[in-house]
């Protein structure tokens, strides 16, 4: 996928595979048997989901750290 066309809050994200603009859609993130619903940019054609860096290093990391195994 590619980012670019647009700036700041109005960022437009394209699916690299299909070349079309992603749209916000309902996504379920699954981690260790738990499901977390969220709205994320999703390709209307192939279903590929874009996970922003701030989600990966933010809330997703927070969940991972809440569950620290040995």
């Amino acid at each position, binding site marked *: 996928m590619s980012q670019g066309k647009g700036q700041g809050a109005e960022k437009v994200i394209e699916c690299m595979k299909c070349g079309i603009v992603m749209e916000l859609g309902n996504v379920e993130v699954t981690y*260790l*048997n*738990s499901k*977390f*619903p*969220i*709205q994320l940019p999703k390709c209307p054609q192939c279903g590929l989901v874009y996970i922003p860096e701030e989600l990966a290093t933010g*809330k997703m990391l*927070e*969940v991972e750290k*809440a*569950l*620290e*195994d*040995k």
Partner: protein
Amino acid sequence: MSEQGTILSTTESVCPFCLRRLPAQRVLQKDQVFLVKDCPEHGLTKTLLWQGLPSYQSWARPKLPSQPKACFTTVSRGCPFDCGLCPDHRQHSCTVLLEITQRCNLGCTYCFANAGADPAADPDLATIKGWFEQILLAGGPFNIQLSGGEPTLRDDLPEIISLGKSLGFNFIQLNTNGLRLAEEPSFVKRCQEAGLTSVFLQFDGTEEAIYQTLRGKAILQQKLLAIEHCREYQLGVVLVPTLVPGVNVHNIGAMIKLALGYLPTVRGIHFQPVSYFGRYPEAPADRDRITIPEVIREIERQSEGKIQRESFKPPGCENALCSFHGNFVLLPGGELRPWTKHEGCCGTVEKAEVGAAKARGFVAKYWAAPEVRTVAVGSHGGAFDLWDAFIERARTHSFSISGMAFQDAWNLDLERLKDCCIHVMSQDRKLIPFCAYNLTDSQGQPLYRQVKQR
């Protein structure tokens, strides 16, 4: 496979009668694995190590050995006779036990410490300070368990806890039968204020008959009262049943159910299959043992499949064959959802000391009471409400189910002993692996534990 079975691998052990070191074989017969050894003086011994699924061979978690940072003994006679730790040891300390008294207010049928039989005088505070300092020299601070005897018999227990805290030991756990915690809530309060983090509570079942058999008294109500008092003063509790075939194995599911009812005070349940060292009624037959896979299967069966065997994995700290654990979170609707991470189980080799550090962190985080927070989360209508609610629930309602199989003179595997991370501070400031420290021969003579001189 011959009638005698298949030799899976070889190791070393000791003769249960004279404790001399012997070559030993791990032998598979049908779904059972035995330790077989032959003493030139006392003959052949064959002891059950493992029974059924998950299989012995599958229960692996290979580690790259880590020599202790400081060794207080040298290699002279070889394992298990040089403990201190010696340079041949392969793991750092996760938890160090300090036995602060040999006195006890129970006379249990099974007691690895043979406590209360003829107790020596308690070590004074200066001696205990020397023990803490020795742990720092060994590379600590490590997690501390105050043990005995029954440590709550010491009125200066809060001072001992404060002493440890002042020297930088942030996780101090109390190994107790809970009787004084039940009788004297003000003592619980003083221990908590001194810095106690967790209570490792002897808890053998939900039926009084179990206590009559194992502890000589009906003390279930005192156990529950002890938990209540820990709740009052925000101390995390881990229930610790000694599992004895024919006594309380049928009660595993009921114990887990009861434990879950006391979340978040009770943070987990830690099963200890009975071992035959210290004080026990008679030399064991295989039917007197319950092995790790049997415990796992009983958990699955007695929970009616709600807790599945796949939720458990071998440890990253001690030898894989010494324990199992699984992590869960109890959700508001009553679902017990597993979150065990199965990393490190599939043939990858981990560095032993990294596993020890992880285990210390895990215990400090999940066996202590969760901090009380007054601000509600997940109620602001944001996109991450459910995520935040889960994070908070995992913090307060995580629950661990685990078990550790100790080794006695019959089933001792010296490879496992070298991987041990639970160490006891001896009177002469040596760190001795738990199973070596408590090892006794068939006549009850200890290898390391000091008995009072007459």
